[in-house]
């Protein structure tokens, strides 16, 4: 499966260039600057729209300027649990109004986890498979692998594949209890366009994805197993991997990379600058690998370790300028 385009709305701003400039400049930023839903998408149909859906609709809109779609173009989008702010707002209305059902009915579909993917389809006319995966920080890898199967099975001609996470006090509250700490949270939406690998151009091939649950071994040993698996699947030597993007600054990913790939690859850690972008983390990592590689071809890896014991990685073959055309 081939990545032929990408786009992002990140705490550094709108589009590829803003994201990559932000990473290069190394100045932390945590919220998408000036993101107003009605300003971005117009007032029509957005009155009750949740921030996650709006971020996704806008990011996908930018992506689709660069690619051709047809009736079987679909969407695979990752989230942690949808828009927490919208879900909490709905419950609040039900509890404080004179009757529990005096809620804004227009809010309901936006409170569902599939809202962002469905809105992308509705706004951009994408009638292919439309799937939401909800696997926290692992969502990028989960979406990528799921998308690969849809393409391999001929169920879609091309897929918008990405993930989105919104900033908000409701999410922050849940995160405090989930992590037991005050982590710096970020937000945004990163999206790739995936097509079956073929003779045409593109940015990178997704060669292998492997994910595992930590059961008997330690987290870093389990992730090391994933790394060895993707290298074996692709018949790539550890020394050939020139860049790694990690999902967090914890020890697990660095220890696994050190063990399997040695200390040599360039390490990228977007979350260090954007804060924890939740489900969107993995796709931001891939965007960073695609963008920062410049014109060079080579092998790159994105790793992930989540607090629920899931670990995983994806192996990308960056195609370089010649193939990208």
């Amino acid at each position, binding site marked *: 499966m081939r990545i032929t385009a990408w786009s992002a709305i990140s705490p550094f701003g709108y589009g590829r260039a803003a994201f990559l400039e932000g990473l290069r400049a190394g100045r932390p930023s945590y919220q998408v600057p000036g993101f107003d839903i009605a300003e971005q998408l117009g007032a029509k149909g957005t009155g009750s729209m949740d921030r996650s859906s709006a971020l996704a609709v806008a990011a996908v809109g930018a992506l689709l300027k660069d690619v051709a779609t047809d009736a079987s173009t679909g969407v695979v989008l990752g989230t942690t649990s949808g828009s927490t702010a919208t879900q909490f707002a709905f419950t609040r209305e039900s509890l404080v109004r004179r009757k*529990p059902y005096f809620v804004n009915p227009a809010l*309901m579909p936006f409170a569902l986890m599939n809202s962002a993917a469905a809105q992308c389809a509705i706004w951009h006319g994408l009638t292919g498979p439309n799937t939401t995966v909800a696997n926290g920080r692992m969502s990028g890898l989960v979406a990528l*692998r799921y998308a690969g199967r849809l393409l391999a099975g001929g169920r879609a001609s091309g897929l918008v594949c990405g993930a989105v996470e919104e900033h908000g006090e409701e999410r922050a509250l849940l995160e405090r209890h989930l992590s037991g700490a005050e982590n710096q949270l970020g937000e945004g939406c990163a999206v790739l366009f995936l097509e079956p690998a073929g003779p045409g151009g593109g940015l990178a091939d997704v060669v292998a994805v492997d994910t595992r649950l930590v059961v008997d071994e330690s987290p870093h040993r389990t992730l090391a197993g994933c790394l060895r698996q993707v290298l074996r699947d692709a018949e790539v030597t550890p020394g050939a991997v020139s860049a790694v993007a990690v999902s967090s600054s914890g020890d697990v990913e660095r220890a696994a990379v050190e063990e399997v790939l040695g200390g040599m690859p360039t390490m990228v850690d977007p979350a260090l600058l954007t804060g924890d972008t939740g489900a969107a983390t993995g796709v931001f990592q891939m965007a960073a690998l695609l963008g920062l590689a410049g014109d060079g071809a080579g092998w790159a890896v994105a790793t992930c370790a989540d607090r629920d014991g899931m670990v995983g990685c994806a192996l990308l073959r960056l195609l370089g300028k010649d193939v990208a055309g």
Partner: protein
Amino acid sequence: MSSHRVAVTGLGVVSSIGIGVAEFTAGLRAGRSGARPISRFDTTGFAHANGCEVVDFQPEHWIRRVPAADLGRAGQFSVAAARMAVEDAGLDPAALAAQRGMVSIGTTDGGSDSGERVAESLVRSRPVDPAAARRTPAAGLSVPVARELKLSNVDISTIATACAAGNYAIGAGYDAVAAGAAGFALCGGADALCRMTFTGFYRLGAVDPEACRPFDSDRHGILTGEGAGVLVLEPLESALARGARVYAEVLGYGLNCDAFHQVAPDQGSVARCMSLAMADAGVRPSDVDLISAHGTGTKANDRTECAAIREVFGDRLPRTVSMKSMLGHTMGAASALAAAGCALALTHGFIPPTINHRETDPECGIDCVPNEAVQADLRVVQNNALAFGGNNAVVLFGRPDR
């Protein structure tokens, strides 16, 4: 890419009409109703509040390794149903752990029943229960399934494609097993009764005060329900080689999106999804013996879905039933429970009825097998699922010896 035929060899069921395959089968045959007054959340202020609640679920019967208190109710349902399904398939979890596998659980609400408890604490200025907050992530429906069964090398996903999510998850499992990427898949759906969903449908005027009457002239909407259905999928040849009972074969599936309206289904798009599924499965409309409809019991759904069925099947309409008449609308679990029902119908040669039925709406115009199950020699059964957001998923099951 290798291509295996895919068998359904195990079923795990948590439902309002019975827990476990035997009770669920008996419930479907008897046309049992799961409807009762909702007790899971405070329904004060609603003029009516019937739902299809699971009342006799004892998590400790099924959940042995993962602390049940760490799981939300939907997570408990999915873990219990997965454990049941693996046992029903006669599989040893240790043997599963030795191969690459898949766990895929569909859901509408995920951990929202816990999330709304947190939200309520905020509204009432009470301290937040940290345990409730920890139960909210939707990944808590799929990851604990693997943890419970000690499966490390598994592709794990929670698929949150609302009320079609169960079929989406079954499709994901089918693709992984058919391609040889997974030696087995535990896939299905789970949801717990949730105040938000009930309130939303109620506000839309889509909750029946009494009972769910799909395809009836006097239907008034859904009853919200809860539960889980998990299917064990494995390659047909290895299932036969180990002497497994094969309930059904997954013949194929179709996915598409209306890309049209958030809550109103689109007839043409639903029809296309059925055609996609049949093309994938290599069957013609005349091969389909039974449709397990999405059949929510709302005016709009049943009318549109039946019109889409007519568009695809012409004058030769297969009998078309709604198991939601018995189970309520169990959201992300709905198409998974219905899939289990389809597999059981194929195995035992009967059609689960559409209960609470008085008079078929001429606008629906289908034979919904009213009120009483009938014996039938079924070879191919189609399971429809439609979701808010225009997300459609249709799965076709066949009798393995057909």
